[in-house]
Structure formats: C-alpha cells, structure tokens
C-alpha cells in the first residue's frame, strides 16, 4: 500500500510537474497572506503588511527550488531544464558552439577511426574457432616463418604440443572456367588445413588428409565464398564442376563459409587447393626439397594442457634434430610462436608498433582538443561571470550551476562525438573496400563494430567531463557581490594561470604533431628522388606466368624470347629485358646463401653472404637503367650449356671479395656447390620495400641458367603509358591469347613497394594538419579572450595616446609568448619522437634544417592567423564608446 502510494506519488511528480509547481507557489503565497493577516492585525496597513511578510519569508525562488528538490524526481526535469538552457546559450553564441563541436568532431573522429583500424588489425578475434589457442610457427632467428615441405612434415609428425599442424602457401595461378584464363590468388594448403582450423564447409565438402596420396594426387579446389559469389553467381550446383588450373583439370569440391578468408588477415585468396598438387601451379616439384623454404606459414592449435613455452621447447628439440641430420639444408632451426593473422611478428610487430604510435598520437590530439575546449570554456565562464553571479545572488546553489555547466560540456562533447563518429564511419567504409595494391587481393575490413561505438561514446563523455572540469574552480570562487559591484573585469591576472599552462601544453603537442608530419613528408619526398639503382620513370612492367598458360620445360625460355622480340617491334620502345621479380618487391624477395670459393663445408653457418637473387635476361640492365660498372652484360649464349656466370652488385663484391676491383673474373659457390664466375659488376640498388635499408648484396643470374616461368618484362619507352600498354597487350594476344598478363608502369608499381611508408606518411600528415587546426583554435580562443577581457584597459590606453603597436603588444603579447614557448618545447619533443619515426619513414631526420625551418614558420604563421581577428578587434577599439558603455 505504502509502496503503491509512493509509486503513484513518483508518477504524479513526473507527469503533474506543472501542477505541483503551481501548488507549491500557491502554498507559499498562502503562507505570506496568513503572515500578512497577522501583521495587519498588529496595526500595519495591508500593503505594508504584505511587503513585510514577503521580506520575512526570505528568498522565494530559492525555497521553491528547494521544495522541488525535496519533492524528489527532479533529476530528469533538471536535466531537461539544463539541456534546454544550454541549447539556448549555444544558439546565442553559434561561433563558440561550432568551433567546439568541430574541434571535438575532429578529435573524436580521428580517435574512432584509428581505434577501429587497431580493433580490426590487432584486437579483433579471427574467424577461426578457438582463435586464442591458434599459433603460427616462426623462426627464432629472423622472425619470418617459411618452412620447406619435408621440414613441415617432420614438425607435424614429431611434435607433441599441437593438436595438429597445418601449412599454407600463397601463390598465383591461371584459372580457366571455359572462358579466357584469369589470374587468381590461391592458397596451397595441407590436406589437414580445414580440419586443424576446425572450419566447416558452406557448400559441398572440404578435402582432408585422406585425399593426399603423393604429388599431384588431389586435384581438388575449395572456393572462397566471395569468389564463388562473384564468379559462379551463387551457383549451388558448383560442387563437382571441373575447372582448369594452369591447364590442369581440378574438381571444385566445396565452398568455404563467408566469414573465412584464410588466416592471413589482410589477404583474400580466391580458392584453396591441396599443397601436394603444388607442382601443377608452381611449375616445379618442391615437395622433396628440404633446403627450399617456400611454405608461407605453419600453424596449429596448442593442446589445452601445453603452454607456449613448452611448445617452443618441443619444436626446438625437433629443430636441433633436423640441424644435425640435414646440415646441408637446415641451418639454425629454433622456433618461436606468434599469432598467424599478421604473419607472426614479421608484420605483426611493426603493425602493432605503428598502430600503437598512431593511437597515442590520436590520444594526444584528443587531449589537445580537450585542453583547447577547456580554455574556451573557461573563457566563456569568465565572460558569463556576471550571469553566474546573478544566479548565485538569486539563490542558485553552486553545485546546481556546475551541473548546468557540465550538462553543457557533455552535450557539446556528445554532439562532437556524433559528428566525428559519422565522419569516421564514412572513412572506414571507404577503407574497408579499398584495395591499395591493384595486383594483390589485399584489403582490410575495418568496419566499425560495437567496440568502436562504445569507445567513441566513452571518449566523448570522458572528454566532456575533462574540459567541463576546467572552469569549476573559477565558478566555485565567484563572489557574486564583488562581480556585480565591479563589473565583469575580473582580475587581469599577471601570473600564469591554469589556462595559460593548458594552452602551452596544447601548443607543444601540436608542434610535436607538426614536426612529425613534416619529417614524414620530407622523408617521402626524398624517397621519391633517391637513387634506386634503377630508373622507374618511363618504364612499363609486364607480369606473366607462362605456367598459367600451360608452358612447360624448354617451351618457357623459347616463349620468353619470342615475347622480348615482339616487344622490340613496337615503335618507340628502346629496350626490353626480363627479370624474375622486379625490385623493390613488395611482399617476397628471394635470397639464397653463397660461399667463398675456398669453402668446402657448405653448411649454412659457413655462408659468406645471403644476397638477393634476380634471374634476368640480356639487356635487362639496359632496360632498367642500372649502371654496369665493370665487365659485361649477359647474352643469350649464357645458357645451360655455357659456363655458370653472374653479375653482382658492389656490396656483394665488397662482402665476398673484399673490394669491387678484386671481384671481376673471380668465382664463388652456391649452396649446391656450383662454382659461379663473376662476369660483371653493377651499382647497388634498393631491393626490398624498406628503402631505408643499408646496401644489400645482390646477384643477377642469366635467366637461361636459372629459369623462371614467372617474369616481369621491363619495357623502356618514352611512349604514353596507356598507348604503350595497349600495344603490349595486342602483341601478347598475337603470341598467345590464353596467357593472362598484368601491365603497369614501374612508377605505379613503386607505390606497391612504398605502400607502407606512404600510408604512414599520409596518416602522420593528417594528424599534423589536425594538430595545426587545434593549435589555431586554441590560440584564437586565448587571444580573443585576452582581448575581450582587457577591452576597457585597451580603450583607456588608446585614449591616453598609446600607439597601435603598444596596444597590440599589450593585448597579444602573452598569446605570442605562449606560442613561442610551446613551439620550442614541441619542437624539442618532436626531435626526440622522430627517432621512433625513423623506423617507418624513409630517411626520417628531424634535424633537417628544412624541417626545422618549416615547423618554426608553420607555427609562426599559425600564430599570426589565429590572432588576426582578435588583433583587429583590439585595434578597432573606440575608447569613447567603450568608456561610455561601461
């Protein structure tokens, strides 16, 4: 009964609010009337009695407020009231509102976007059941993961730590479904792959261990869901169809579930096929070559009772057995475990480091934005000190005023958060469908999930409270009598205030951002103009893999010669050369160990160097514009029958022979003991995407002596690229219409190689721009505030004959001093932080005078821009009107 009463009362308070208010009012009025009656009886006239009664009663509004509070249920009402009041206030100062909301939108949007990428790349669990116990095996020595097939089998069969070990390799193949063959990306996987991962087919069946009966025994294909949708139009009867893979018949047995795109996070293969059939795609049987580490990764679920440390010990004991048993093939065999989604630590570590760094920078931006808004809020609170004082005098409690202030702050932060989040969602949608490298099926689905929305909301609320808290002290110290008595001048503090400190910190943060983005941009500019050891300008790359069109054995070099000759007939083509893999390569580059000629024990630990290998045709150096420093180029007579020869680069010569002059005509040994004579020396170049690398040894072998069915043809010509590409395509079609090819300018292909540093540069550049904008609004707010606070003082100064210069100095001296101090601190910090940048950005050095000058100039310009409007206002002060008004 009592509870029911209470409930009814609560509901009544919610819905009959206005009636309640009226009742409270009537009751208080009745009280005053009664009191006045008494006073009237004691002899006063009615009007005087009522006046006295009212005075005796005290602050009516205050008591009414207290009554409403006592009635309870005021939380929502107060909130609505505050929201309405804040909206009214914001509408009255739209400039403030827009600046505040935009600032926050930028900061929260940046944070949400960066967090979403971080979430997708690092935090998001993979679509594999029990992903937490799935580990990839990588080499302890160099953090990469490739294994040879025999080593994989030994690891798989002799370990006691994994439930099962699966292997996969990435490769390209030509798929012929009846029309022209197309290039597709394949994962060659071990028979137990789907069983080890615990994936169930969406359609049809998967292949299993029991399907493997030696080389080329399992011609089966499992399509990924996306490829099935796009190329087989959701045909549910697809299982059982025969397709040609590199001209070999394969049977489609099933379709993988939609969520499963392989275990490598950013890589979307088109289908899976058994690894035992690799010869039909790769052109040579690698299943028995223990020295050839070509399997991309080996992985599996740890048994529940086994810890990673135990598993590593177990693997290492197998490794030392392999080292002893196969000293020719297996060098150091130690292992570590890592998550397979980012290719272990190889990509995982830099990606994690970069994303963490980016997240930190984004966090700094948010902090800077909060500091910014904090000072804007403080300025606004100071401008409103008269209003606050009035409200205090009328009986509003300080907590009540603070509450309203916080409501306003949180409202702004929520609005900013909403705008920012919507912006970042658009950005992320674009990013999710973006295929940065046209040749590779690489894309990262970074669609925001609940995590991202949650984090954005949290950040918005937190920043709202953070910058809302800045003016608290100011409000608490407001003395209503003083303020109303003396006008809104307040104290024009001479000492450093919290606000000044905030602004200084913020400017420092922004200077860090500007410095890092300048360093990054400079690095990129330099990377574009550095000497690569080849000339990507005016060169077209034509990628073909002859095995896709069914060429085998001796047909391959014959066809390659025909292709070169055909290209040379295109008018305007200067030179044509073939290379197995163009430098610098984005994902994989082949290295192989070599020995000095004197070495007899050819075990890996005795190797003299591990140069990058290129198979090239005659004239490649000419086509690539690589300078031949000594000796000769290859000819078509450097074939299998001729003596084994090589062209090496300077670094190779230095490493093996001591000096370039010493190397000509000398011999070195390859892994299988073949002696190779050096017939030429070329300049050093860039061979890996890490353009910042130290010079690496490289050796170039004649393509007839080390054949490769996949090649990149370098076609050098001044022709318009589009026209050239068309001509190349038609020439290729004339030779073999069933040969899939990929044509791109070398410059464009450089984008692939430089992809990582470019992304880093763009990200840093964007953050830098944001930093600049934040610093600008911050300084603007500060300067505007400083001017408006001292308007009267400035007016008096001008009335007394101060020159514009002096007025400006008085008004804007402090913002400028802060700007200078903050920039200096930020520049210093930026120089320190740029050491970190050096890992991602090519030739990152913040001590570059251009960068230093750029930062200083940028900050100066920024200060000028931001103080322009306040300065104008200070100068246009009309002392007479001003003094009259006050």
């Amino acid at each position, binding site marked *: 009964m*009592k509870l029911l*009463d*209470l409930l009814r*009362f609560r509901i009544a308070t919610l819905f009959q609010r206005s009636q309640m208010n009226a*009742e*409270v009012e*009537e*009751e*208080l009025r*009745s*009280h005053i*009337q*009664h*009191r006045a*009656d008494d006073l009237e009886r004691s002899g006063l006239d009615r009007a005087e009695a009522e006046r006295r009664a009212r005075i*005796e*009663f*005290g*602050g*009516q509004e*205050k*008591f009414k407020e*207290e*009554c409403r*509070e*006592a*009635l*309870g249920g005021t939380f929502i009402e107060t909130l609505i009231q505050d929201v309405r009041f804040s909206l009214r206030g914001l509408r009255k100062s739209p400039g403030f509102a827009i600046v505040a909301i935009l600032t926050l939108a930028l900061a929260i949007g940046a944070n949400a976007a960066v967090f979403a990428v971080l979430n997708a790349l690092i935090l998001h669990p993979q679509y594999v059941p029990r992903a937490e116990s799935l580990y990839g095996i990588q080499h302890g020595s160099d953090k990469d993961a490739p294994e040879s097939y025999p080593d994989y089998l030994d690891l798989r069969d002799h370990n006691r730590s994994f439930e099962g070990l699966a292997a996969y390799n990435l490769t390209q193949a030509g798929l012929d479904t009846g029309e022209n063959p197309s290039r597709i990306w394949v994962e060659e996987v071990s028979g137990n792959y789907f069983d080890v991962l615990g994936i169930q087919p969406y359609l049809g069946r998967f292949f299993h261990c029991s399907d493997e009966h030696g080389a080329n025994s399992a011609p089966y294909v499992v399509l990924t869901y996306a490829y099935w949708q796009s190329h087989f139009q959701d045909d549910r009867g697809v299982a059982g169809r025969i397709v040609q893979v590199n001209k070999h018949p394969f049977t489609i047995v099933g379709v993988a579930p939609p969520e499963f795109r392989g275990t490598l996070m950013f890589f979307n293969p088109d289908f899976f096929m058994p690894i035992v059939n690799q010869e039909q795609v790769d052109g040579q049987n690698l299943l028995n070559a223990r020295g050839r580490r070509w399997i991309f990764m080996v992985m599996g679920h740890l048994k529940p009772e086994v810890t990673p440390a135990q598993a590593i010990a177990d693997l290492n004991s197998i490794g030392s057995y392999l080292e002893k048993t196969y000293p020719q093939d297996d060098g150091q065999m130690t292992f570590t475990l890592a998550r397979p989604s980012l290719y272990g630590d190889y990509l995982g570590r830099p990606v994690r480091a970069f994303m963490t760094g980016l997240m930190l920078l984004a966090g700094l931006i948010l902090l800077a934005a909060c500091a910014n808004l904090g000072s804007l809020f403080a300025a606004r609170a100071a401008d409103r000190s008269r209003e606050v004082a009035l409200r205090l005098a009328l009986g509003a409690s300080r907590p009540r005023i603070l509450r309203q202030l916080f409501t306003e702050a949180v409202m702004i932060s929520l609005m900013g958060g909403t705008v920012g989040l919507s912006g970042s969602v658009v950005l992320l949608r674009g990013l999710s469908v973006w295929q940065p490298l046209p040749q590779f099926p690489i894309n990262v689905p970074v669609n925001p999930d609940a995590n991202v929305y949650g984090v954005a909301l949290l950040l918005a609320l937190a920043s709202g409270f953070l910058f809302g808290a800045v003016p608290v002290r100011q409000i608490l110290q407001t003395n209503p009598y003083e303020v109303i008595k003396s006008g809104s001048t307040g104290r024009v503090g001479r000492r450093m205030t919290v606000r000044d400190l905030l602004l200084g910190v913020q400017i420092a943060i922004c200077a860090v951002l500007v410095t890092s983005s300048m360093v990054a941009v400079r690095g990129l500019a330099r990377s574009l103009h550095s000497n690569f050891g080849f000339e990507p300008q005016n060169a077209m790359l034509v990628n073909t893999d002859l095995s896709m069109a069914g060429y085998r054995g001796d047909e391959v070099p014959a066809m390659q010669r025909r292709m070169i000759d055909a290209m040379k007939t295109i008018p305007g083509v200067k030179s044509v050369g073939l290379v197995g893999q163009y430098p610098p390569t984005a994902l994989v580059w082949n290295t192989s160990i070599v020995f000095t000629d004197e070495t007899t024990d050819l075990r890996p630990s005795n190797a003299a160097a591990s140069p990058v290998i290129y198979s090239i045709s005659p004239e490649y150096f000419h086509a690539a514009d690589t300078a031949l420093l000594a000796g000769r180029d290859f000819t078509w007579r450097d074939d299998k029958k001729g003596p084994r020869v090589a062209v090496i680069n300077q670094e190779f010569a230095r490493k093996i022979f001591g000096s370039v002059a010493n190397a000509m005509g000398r011999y070195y040994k390859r892994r299988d003991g073949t002696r190779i004579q050096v017939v030429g020396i070329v300049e050093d170049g860039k061979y890996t995407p890490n353009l910042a690398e130290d010079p690496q040894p490289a050796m170039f072998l004649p393509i007839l002596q080390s054949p490769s069915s996949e090649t990149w043809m370098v076609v050098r010509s001044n022709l318009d690229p589009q026209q050239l590409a068309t001509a190349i395509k038609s020439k290729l079609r004339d030779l073999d219409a069933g040969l899939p090819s990929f044509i791109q300018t070398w410059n464009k292909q450089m984008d692939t190689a430089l992809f990582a540093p470019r992304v880093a540069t763009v990200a840093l550049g964007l953050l830098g721009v944001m930093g600049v904008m934040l610093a600008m609004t911050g300084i603007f707010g500060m300067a505007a505030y400083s001017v408006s606070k001292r308007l009267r003082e400035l007016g008096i100064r001008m009335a007394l004959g101060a020159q514009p210069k002096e007025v400006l100095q008085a008004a804007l001296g402090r913002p400028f001093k802060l700007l200078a101090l903050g920039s200096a601190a930020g520049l210093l910090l930026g120089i320190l932080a740029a050491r970190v940048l050096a890992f991602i950005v090519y030739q990152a050095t913040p001590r570059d005078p251009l960068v230093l000058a750029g930062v200083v100039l940028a900050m100066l310009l920024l200060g000028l821009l931001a103080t322009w409007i306040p300065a104008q206002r200070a100068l246009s002060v009309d002392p007479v009107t001003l003094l009259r008004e006050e």
Partner: protein
Amino acid sequence: MTDQAQILPGTLDLLILRAVSLGPRHGYGILLRIGQISGNALLIEQGALYPGLFRLVRQGLLKASWGTSENNRRAKFYELTAAGRRRLREETESWNRLVAAIASALSQQPEEV
C-alpha cells in the same frame, strides 16, 4: 529577537512532526505552533519550513490536504500519518537520550571525574 537560538541542523523535521502531532495545521500555523511550544526561543527562517514539509510528505510521515483556514483562506493542512507518529516517538526518545547524555557530560564537576 537576539536571544533566539539558531536551530540545530536536522532538528527542524522533529519540531515539525511535534507541532503537527498536536493537530492538523497549515504551514504558517505550524510555524506559529513551533514558536508557541518553544517559547519563541527558536529562530526559523519562514521559507525554510516548506522544503522540510515536502520532505516529510515524501517520506510518508505527513499527509497533506487542501482546506480553508481560520482566516478563511485556502491553505494546505498537514497531519501525521501512522508512520509519522512512530517516527516522532522514536526521534523524541533518541533526542532525550542525547540531551540527557550531553547535559550529564556538561554538568560533571572536575572532582567527580
């Protein structure tokens, strides 16, 4: 006026309950009654009475109804509920215990300790 004592915080509720326990009263009447039963020794700001009244109503210790006063004006009359009566009894007892304890503490002579 100067010899009036500021009331202790928290005691206003007790005074209101006591005043109302002597019969239904409207706000102003309660104020007069408190003055009367305390010998005009307590200073209560007139407006401060109402938040207290509303609080007690919300706690279910008082119930209120509109009626007509002796001056023939509309006024809200308060009376105790059963819970209010119980609360008054408890509060009075604990107040008396407190007063007795403090009085005893203050009246102790040095030699008696």
